[in-house]
């Protein structure tokens, strides 16, 4: 097992995926969810507003993980400079993504609450922004949602490429999508997990909590989430089966996950909390058409927890090829 990266990078990868996924979920409802038919639509509102702050929190945690970069923060600027490194791509992606996510969230708040719009228009110290008020709010918001979702796919995938880019050093992390295909699995797994955890946060938790009885959304929402959970289960089983089949360090990683020292985390936090429990909860919700408070909160929290533990498990069980 590798020891250089532990909890902090796991939380960072998790928050990166969650924030990017939240923006994607918000944009999905913005473009395909009849957003315009409602004055108040909690799912895109929740997704757009949490996205930027989650990423900021993740980046702050990442800075804490750095050694010299924490003590001498100007060194972080050097991280923009080396384009062969996936980490440099990530730093650039986040540099563009975070402001766009923040602006998108702000515009979504303005769109949902016209009173906030009026209040801001009335402020004397904001008079210099007068020209902005002539822009069409909805269309501007959609532009930011579009650019933001393209970048969000990049951020979610980047959290996976960061691991798969170590190549032969840690075979579990560079498992291919299909045997013989030179495309890593980890970016796809992290993208699916990002969408699933973001769905859990925005739909299962925030929408159920703050708009439970008052807001009815499409039954398709639950079917999409069911598909995401199923896809995640398939990708995780493919990861483990491929690792067992490959032998060597990859098989040792898989053995540690399924049978070895990390088995409790795997069976409780992945199999039970990421797959079985949310599947039951969402089949129930899909039949009902919406989440009960209990089913929404419990499956939402279990998916979020399991998303974090999935990153941690994959990080901690990365057995180097060569000991």
């Amino acid at each position, binding site marked *: 097992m*590798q020891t*250089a*990266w532990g909890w902090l990078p796991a939380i960072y990868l998790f928050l990166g995926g969650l924030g990017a996924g939240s923006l994607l979920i918000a944009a999905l409802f913005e473009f395909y969810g009849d957003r315009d038919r409602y004055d108040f639509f909690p799912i895109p509102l929740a997704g757009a507003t949490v996205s930027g702050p989650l990423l900021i929190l993740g980046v702050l945690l990442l800075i804490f*993980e*750095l*050694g*010299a*970069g*924490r*003590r001498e923060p*100007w*060194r*972080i*600027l*050097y*991280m923009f*400079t*080396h384009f*062969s*490194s*996936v*980490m*440099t791509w990530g*730093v650039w992606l986040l540099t563009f993504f975070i402001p766009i996510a923040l602006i998108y969230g702000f515009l979504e708040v303005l769109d949902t609450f016209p009173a906030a719009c009026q209040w801001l228009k009335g402020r004397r110290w904001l008079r210099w922004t007068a020209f902005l008020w002539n822009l069409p709010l909805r269309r501007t918001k959609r532009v930011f949602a579009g650019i933001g979702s393209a970048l969000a796919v990049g951020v979610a995938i980047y959290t996976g490429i*960061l691991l798969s*880019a*170590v*190549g*032969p*050093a*840690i075979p579990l992390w560079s498992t291919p999508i299909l045997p013989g295909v030179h495309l890593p699995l980890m970016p796809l797994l992290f993208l699916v997990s990002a969408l699933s955890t973001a769905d859990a946060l925005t739909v299962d938790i925030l929408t159920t909590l703050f708009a439970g009885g008052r807001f009815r959304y499409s039954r398709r929402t639950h079917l999409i989430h069911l598909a995401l959970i199923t896809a995640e289960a398939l990708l995780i089983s493919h990861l483990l089966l491929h690792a067992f089949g490959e032998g060597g360090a990859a098989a040792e990683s898989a053995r540690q996950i399924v049978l070895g020292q990390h088995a409790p985390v795997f069976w409780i936090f992945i199999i039970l909390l990421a797959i079985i429990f949310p599947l039951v909860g969402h089949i129930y919700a899909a039949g009902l058409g919406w989440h009960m408070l209990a089913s929404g909160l419990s499956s939402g929290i279990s998916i979020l927890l399991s998303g974090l533990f999935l990153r941690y498990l994959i990080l901690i069980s*990365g057995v*180097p*090829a*060569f*000991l």
Partner: protein
Amino acid sequence: MEIPRLSRRRFLGLTAAAGVAAALGVPLLKKEASLAQERPKARYALIIDTTKCTGCGACIEACRLRNHLPEGVSYIRRIVKGNERNPWFLMIQCQHCANPPCATVCPTNATYRREDGVVLIDERLCVGCKYCMQACPYQARVYDEERGVADKCWLCLPWVLGGGLPACVEACIPGARLFGRADDPQSEVAQLIASGQAKPLHPEFGTDPSILFYVIEA
């Protein structure tokens, strides 16, 4: 009439700020001038004969002493191979790859390869993200907790450039370590490499180690 004057003042201010930032930033971005810019004169090779190595660990301690590393930390790591009847030892340190994955993944370009093949870390650029430690398939890197930077074997470069030997070579009791110039066909290291007895470790990683070679009995 007020607006242009204000904007000019702001422009001048921004220019001054940018100038100060550039003046501060450029020297920080410069590499360690002494080691990075010196013209290479040689191609080095360090061959470890595992059939002679007794695994005593003198190289590990010599490396630790020369590089002032804390107790228990060294740029050299011992792996025990074989079985209880016939153990043998594989000493691992930076392989000085021609295609170093640590340098590829480094976000700050702190790890770089000299023209003579020695891979070095400019510790003033390192942010301590530990990405290189994950990417090195030989796990040849150590983390300097005190300074928060990645660290590894640097082939004792100042000694070598001055005509000396790496500490591990000097300290090796059974004489299992050979150091020399691979570009001199008369040298012992060049002949061992040419004969195919000394081989790079795990060439299937695609890292193309260019300085470290091992003699391993099949």
